[in-house]
């Protein structure tokens, strides 16, 4: 498949991602934040598709947007947020925090510009068709151990979450 209108889609999706990220950190209502985050995640999975990583894009939608965000929405529904909406939304070190983060961002960009040579501008294209297969081979071959550890991590997380969230065990 030949890419269509790549720059347009890139700027569109990247813009959407960043816009939704800004919405996430500025909205008063946590549900609106979550909504914006979902939008951002979907836009980002579009970016993954443009990077010829369809499997990651699929996992992003199914796990992030369909799984984790539902969890977030659930918790937001459970905790009473009426009151916290009326409170001050930002903490005391907000100015310092913002400045520090912007400085960090500046640092990143500086590094990118300095080290431009490190990233070849033209990319070698990976065949899209067998992407899933290759990822699978890596996952169950080279990264087998890490994969098992990850599953263990999830198990621990499940138990931890249940222990903490349950009233009586």
């Amino acid at each position, binding site marked *: 498949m030949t890419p269509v209108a790549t*720059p347009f889609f890139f700027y569109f999706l990247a813009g959407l991602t960043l816009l939704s990220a800004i919405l996430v950190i500025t909205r008063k209502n946590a549900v609106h934040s979550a909504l914006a985050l979902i939008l951002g995640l979907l836009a980002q999975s579009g970016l993954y598709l443009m990077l010829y990583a369809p499997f990651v894009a699929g996992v992003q939608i199914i796990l992030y947007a369909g799984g984790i965000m539902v969890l977030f929405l659930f918790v937001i529904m459970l*905790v009473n947020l009426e009151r916290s909406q009326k409170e001050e939304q930002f903490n005391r070190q907000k100015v310092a925090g913002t400045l520090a983060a912007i400085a960090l961002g500046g640092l990143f960009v500086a590094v990118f510009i300095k080290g431009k040579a490190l990233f070849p501008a033209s990319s070698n294209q990976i065949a899209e068709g067998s992407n899933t297969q290759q990822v699978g081979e890596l996952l169950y071959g080279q990264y087998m151990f890490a994969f098992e550890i990850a599953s263990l991590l999830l198990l621990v997380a499940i138990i931890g979450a249940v222990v903490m969230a349950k009233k009586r065990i």
Partner: protein
Amino acid sequence: MVPITTLHYLVVAAALFMLGVIGVLTRRNVVIVLMSIELILNAVNLNLVAFSRLWGLHGQVFAIFVITDAAAEAAVGLGILIAFFRNKETVNVDEVDLLKW
């Protein structure tokens, strides 16, 4: 129009990371702080996937691991949040100033 290179993606990821950090540092609501952490993780993922276009699929595999971790983190984080909310009736981070209650 300039062709889209890896650098473009990196800049987007950096901006996303920055926004995430701002969220973590400035917001009081724990839920939104957790969501900002998701933003940070996503920025990392974007980096990884962008690089995987240059240096093989390892980046994508790593991105999948990051998503797994994000799921675990969200589950535990929200579990803590619920336990905390049950005891203190607040969702503000700056009121989490006790090690035990």
